[in-house]
């Protein structure tokens, strides 16, 4: 497994893990509190920051467990990264469009913020999965 592929695994694990942690914090609040009063900003920011830290830690652990020959990305890494970004960009676009619709339709800020956040999470997860498939099955 190349250094860049380890980075993709770390990014996938941290993105998905942070979002699951966010849902674990916010969903119980949503069940017992009116939407307009649900506190979601701090968990959203903290889990986003935590995902960056977790990605760095996971990548380091993978690198220690199985050291890479080289830490430089090559032409294949860049092709695969471009493919993943290109194929998953619709998740961000979808989140932004949903956010616009929410704003036009006077949704609560909670839903607007969360639908945009979901778009970013899906972009990270789908992009990572597609990149891993490309690494394993070919491009």
């Amino acid at each position, binding site marked *: *497994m*190349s*250094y860049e*592929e380890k980075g993709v695994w770390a990014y996938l694990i941290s993105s998905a893990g942070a979002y699951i942690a966010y849902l674990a914090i916010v969903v119980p609040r949503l069940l017992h509190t009116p939407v307009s009063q649900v506190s979601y900003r701090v968990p959203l920011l903290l889990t986003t920051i935590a995902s960056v830290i977790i990605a760095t830690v996971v990548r380091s652990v993978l690198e220690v467990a199985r050291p*890479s*020959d*080289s830490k*430089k990305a*090559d*032409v*294949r*890494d860049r*092709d695969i990264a471009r493919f993943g970004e290109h194929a998953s960009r619709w998740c961000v676009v979808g989140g932004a469009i949903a956010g616009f619709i929410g704003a036009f339709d006077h949704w609560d800020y909670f839903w607007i913020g969360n639908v945009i956040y979901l778009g970013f999470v899906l972009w990270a997860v789908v992009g990572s999965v597609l990149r891993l498939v490309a*690494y*394993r*099955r*070919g*491009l």
Partner: protein
Amino acid sequence: MAPSKPTRITNRIRALRFGHDEMTQAQLAERVGVTRQTIIAIEQGRYSPSLEVAFQIAHVFGVPLDEVFQYPGVSTGSEEGQRR
């Protein structure tokens, strides 16, 4: 499960490596300037290299490009030359 092959391009890199003092994938990767995983992916037909990388690989072995890479159904320049 056998790895899928998204490209129809075949290659003789493995045979050429063994013909050059059993050059390792890591040695070839270093000389071409890519990772060992990329050489493995090219050898297994899981990645079509860029034209530049393809020429670099051929240059390492000191052979024309079409002695390294082949496309099914298309006769190579070298084969044409041998027939004449």
